[in-house]
Each structure stands twice: as structure tokens, then as C-alpha cells.
């Protein structure tokens, strides 16, 4: 008997039992939809966290000093001196002081931008370069120059063109700063993005935000292979200095990404487990209904056998029926899963539909139909035609 014909027969029998077929499929529908929605959510959140961590730069470490639980105080110069002594591990250090302020240019006013006080090393540490003009120089720090390097979001908000911006004086909390450079665009010049920044000399910022103490350092490690060693060196130095490891924190991007991927992996494992269980439960439901169906259709099976159906033809018919049911359930589940990612999950995290998971869960639903269809199909195929014809 041809496959297409068996398929037609299966579909006809499914159509004649719509309500029951739908209930039978429910387990598979829910299982598949849950897998796709949950993996979509997990992958979306992972992607957004990963991209924000990676935004910190590839070989960079962040050191934050709290000066807590200790009476020792590490000065800026002491820290810089230490990094210079370990030049083979620390290529560059960029201290930062951040704050927010109102920015004005002529009649335009704007107050979303992040203002970062830093030094010339910021350029290589953050891999953030100017497209026009110049960067902050160490000389600017020495003379507490009132100059600013601005991101494209600031340009878009205050000026008509880059030409107008370059050399113009903007007022930051009333103090005029000369725009000397414009940064490369990173995120399309969006407001609130990493393009929405104003860099000013560290010393100028310290005075403006009246924060004498610098607590944040971004460190560039020359080679990603050295990152772990550098962390150890920094931690040893800081613990020795403070006598405790509560007063500082070395933030290693690679470490966070590792942890994140571990979390993601175990999440995927849990999801996979739930999926397998719910699909198995769905499969048992299918087997149950198929057994009922075989009993109900005993006479049909007897007639088919009397007319010349082989065991294999009857087997095929019932297995295909089971696979079509779970396949339809799988397809519906995929549809619901994808829709829930697009319509609901996309509000919270970037919507990611992983085709691998779509195919795996759909494929698994077919396998479930095959596996749980075998037993009822065998039962049908082994019916004695005479008994079957005498039934009813």
C-alpha cells in the first residue's frame, strides 16, 4: 500500500474524529510550544546579557575600589604606579568618573547624556575612537582643560551637522566646554546608547562632580590569554594592600560569560528535560487513544484483512495515523511557540527563534508518534480476522 494513500486514510480518520484528535494532540502541542517559547526566552535573555557584557570590550577588566572595611586608602597615583610596574600584564589603564549634567548649546538643551571623566588611555581601553577632531590628551588632564569629545547622539541632539559641532562651545551645568572631537558611531546614534556620551578630562570631571576619589579603573590586558593571570596579580596586590578582599572588586568579563554560559546550559538542560517529559506524557496519551481507536475499529480491521490487507498494511496505517496526529500537534505547537515569542516574549528580550529547536521539537513529536504508535498498531495488525469480523 502506497504511503500517500496511507496518509490520506490517516487524515480522513483524523478528520472524522476532530474533537478527540485535538484533545489527544494537546499534550504534544503544549510540549512543543513550551520548548520553543522557553528556549526563545532563554536565548533572548542570554543574547541581551552577553551583548551588554561584550560591550565592555574583549580583553578588559574592571577594578572597583570600595575602601570599605579597611582604614587604608589606595590613592590614584599608587594604583597607577602599580599598573606601570606590571606593564607586561597591563597595557593601559583608564580611570573613570561618571555623572550626569544638563547640556546646553545656544537654545538647545539636553540632559540624557552620560558624562565620563577619563584620560587618553580610554581610547584604546574601550576601543572607542574619534572620527573627527582629536581625543583627550594627558596634557588636558594636567591643565584641567574644559574640552569635550562627544558621541554622535549628542551631535544629533544639539547640532545640525558635525561641522557645526566641532569647535563649538557647549555648556555643561553652565560651564562652557569646547567640542574638540566626535566619537565613532557604535549604536546608530541612538539616544541612551553608547553613542550618547560626553568625554571630558578626568581632572575636570573630578572638580565638576566634586569627587576627589577615583574608584573605577578599566584595564586593558595585552592578550586574552593573560586575563586570568592579571586578575590574580591584581587581587594579590589589592588584598595585600587592604588586608581584606572585601574592599575591592575585580570584574572579569570572561568569567561572567563563563558563568552565564553555564547557567544557559543548565537552563537548556532543564528545559530539555521538561520538554521530554511533557512529550512523553503526550505520547502516552496518544497510545491510549490509539488503543481505544483500535478496539473501536476492530470490525474495520477485520474487513480490511478479509479483503486482503497484510499485517504490514494495517501496521502502516495505524502508525502513520499516530505520526500524523503527533506531527500535526508538533506543527501547531511550533506555530504557537513562534507566535508567543513574536508577540509576548519580544516585549522583554530580543526575540530569537532557533530553527534547531524548532526542528528538534517537531522531529521529536514525530518520533513520539512513531514510538507510541507501534504498540497499538501491532495490536491492530495481530487481530484475528475472524474474531474481528464476529465483533460488535
Amino acid at each position, binding site marked *: *500500500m502506497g504511503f500517500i494513500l496511507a496518509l490520506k486514510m490517516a487524515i480522513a*480518520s483524523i478528520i472524522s474524529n476532530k474533537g478527540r484528535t485535538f484533545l489527544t494532540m494537546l499534550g504534544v502541542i503544549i510540549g512543543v510550544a513550551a520548548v520553543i517559547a522557553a528556549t526563545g526566552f532563554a536565548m533572548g535573555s542570554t543574547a541581551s546579557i552577553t551583548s551588554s557584557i561584550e560591550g565592555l570590550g574583549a580583553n578588559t577588566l574592571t577594578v572597583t575600589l570600595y575602601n570599605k572595611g579597611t582604614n587604608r586608602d589606595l590613592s590614584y597615583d599608587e594604583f597607577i604606579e602599580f599598573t606601570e610596574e606590571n606593564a607586561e600584564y597591563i597595557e593601559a589603564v583608564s580611570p573613570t568618573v561618571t555623572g550626569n549634567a544638563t547640556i546646553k548649546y545656544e537654545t538647545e538643551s539636553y540632559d540624557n547624556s552620560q558624562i565620563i571623566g577619563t584620560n587618553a588611555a580610554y581610547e584604546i581601553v574601550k576601543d572607542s575612537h574619534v572620527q573627527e577632531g582629536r581625543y583627550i590628551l594627558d596634557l588636558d588632564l594636567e591643565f584641567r582643560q574644559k574640552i569635550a569629545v562627544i558621541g554622535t547622539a549628542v551631535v544629533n541632539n544639539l547640532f545640525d551637522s558635525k561641522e557645526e559641532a566641532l569647535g563649538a562651545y557647549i555648556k555643561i551645568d553652565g560651564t562652557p566646554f569646547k567640542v574638540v572631537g566626535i566619537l565613532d558611531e557604535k549604536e546608530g546614534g541612538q539616544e541612551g546608547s553608547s553613542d550618547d556620551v560626553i568625554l571630558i578630562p578626568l581632572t575636570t570631571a573630578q572638580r565638576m562632580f566634586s569627587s576627589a576619589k577615583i574608584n573605577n579603573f578599566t584595564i586593558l590586558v595585552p592578550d586574552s590569554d593573560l586575563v586570568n593571570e592579571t586578575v590574580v596579580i591584581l587581587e594579590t596586590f589589592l588584598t595585600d594592600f587592604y588586608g581584606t578582599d572585601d574592599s575591592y572588586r575585580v570584574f572579569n568579563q570572561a568569567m561572567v560569560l563563563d558563568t552565564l554560559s553555564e547557567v544557559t546550559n543548565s537552563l537548556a538542560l532543564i528545559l530539555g528535560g521538561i520538554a521530554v517529559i511533557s512529550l512523553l506524557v503526550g505520547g502516552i496519551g496518544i497510545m491510549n487513544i490509539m488503543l481505544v481507536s483500535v478496539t473501536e475499529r476492530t470490525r474495520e480491521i477485520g474487513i480490511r484483512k*478479509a479483503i486482503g*490487507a*497484510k499485517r*504490514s498494511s494495517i501496521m502502516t496505517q495505524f502508525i502513520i495515523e499516530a505520526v500524523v496526529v503527533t506531527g500535526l500537534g508538533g506543527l501547531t505547537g511550533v506555530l504557537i511557540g513562534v507566535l508567543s515569542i513574536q508577540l509576548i516574549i519580544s516585549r522583554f528580550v530580543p526575540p530569537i527563534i532557533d530553527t534547531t529547536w524548532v526542528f528538534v521539537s517537531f522531529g521529536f513529536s514525530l518520533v513520539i508518534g512513531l514510538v507510541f504508535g507501534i504498540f497499538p498498531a501491532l495490536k491492530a495488525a495481530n487481530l484475528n480476522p475472524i474474531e474481528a469480523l464476529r465483533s460488535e
Partner: protein
Amino acid sequence: MAALVEMKNLKKTYKMGETYVKALDGIDLTIEKDEFVSIIGPSGSGKSTLMNMIGCLDALDEGTYHLEGIDVSELSGNKLAMIRSTKIGFIFQGFNLLSKLTALENVEMPLIYQNYSHKNRKKKAIEALEKVGLGDRLHHKPTELSGGQQQRVAIARALVADPPIILADEPTGNLDSKSGKEIMDMLVDLHKQGNTIILITHDTYIANTARRKIVLKDGKITEDVEVS
């Protein structure tokens, strides 16, 4: 050439709880091609069991059965299915049509199991339905047909694969006398066209339509006569 049906001392016993029922108890029977045989006997005399034997639906316990010279008891399940689909056309008392399929689909079914192509299948099935006078009822479901029409669909299904034997088990049992007569006329016609027909009945009048009458009692043949 070997006889179409040749049974020697064939026995079949059914177990019903503790008791054994000798449904067939030493049947010797030879049926040649082109015969029209009726098998008559009271209820429970083993007529249906004999038909199931001839139709290769059931396995014998003792004795031998050769169909066109082939020893049927030697054959595998798949071979038997093959024989049923190519050599036997069944007509049952209760029609035994599949209620979800149309007349045409019911008649196509034996051809499906013989792997006919879609086109040939349709063509042959339509021909068979036209032969039984249902050319205008191809797409009706059994429930939309009268009993006589349903039995005619069953006859078309039995004929469609051109089997050498047509086995009819009380084909008029569920029909009113008018439809019953139509069905009998049709079987007589089929015999005239060269089909071998084995007709089971408990109605003496109907049994006498055949050319040869076999009387069954308690699983034994008690009479085997030509009908004039």
C-alpha cells in the same frame, strides 16, 4: 489441472471455555472452476466456518486444503493475505462495508492492497459498480444507500479484483425479499458470465437457485446433489 477447491477430511474445533465445539468434522469437498454451489444447513452447522476455511481466513486443525493446487496450510500470513485479495471475493450477510468511505472507495479497497495504480483502481472500481447498477451512486456513503444497494456495493467489491471464487455468506439474510431476489438474480448472472460462486444459505428456495447443493449438519456433509 487441479481443482479450484479440494478439501480432504478437514476438521476444525473451537474451544469455548471448557467445551470443544467441532465446527467442521471431516469435510471432503471438491469444487471445480465455474461451478455454482450452495451450502445449506441449520444455524450452527458450520457453514460460516467452512466459508472462512475456503476463504483462507481461518486455519484448519486437521486434514488438507488445496486451493488451485496450493497447500494453503503451508502458507505464511502475508501469502494468505495475498490469496484473499487475488483469489477470493467475500460477500457477507451484514455487508461489511466501511461506513466512512464512499461506495467507490469501498470497492477500490481490494485493489489498494494489490498496489494498483490510482488510475487503474478508479477505472476498475467504477466498472464494477456499473456492473451492479450503481454507476450513479459512486460517491454515496453506505448509510445513504438502501440495504440492497449496500449489498450490491459489497458484490462490486468482491468482483473488482476478478477473483476466481466468490464466497457469499447468507447474502440475502439481511434483506427484504425483493432486494434479496435482486441480489440472487445478480449472482445467477455472475455465474453465467463465468464466475465460480459458493453461496451459503439456510433458505432451501435460495439454495435451489444453484447448480449443486451441499447440505451441512453438525460439521459434516450429509448431502451433495446436483440441482436440476
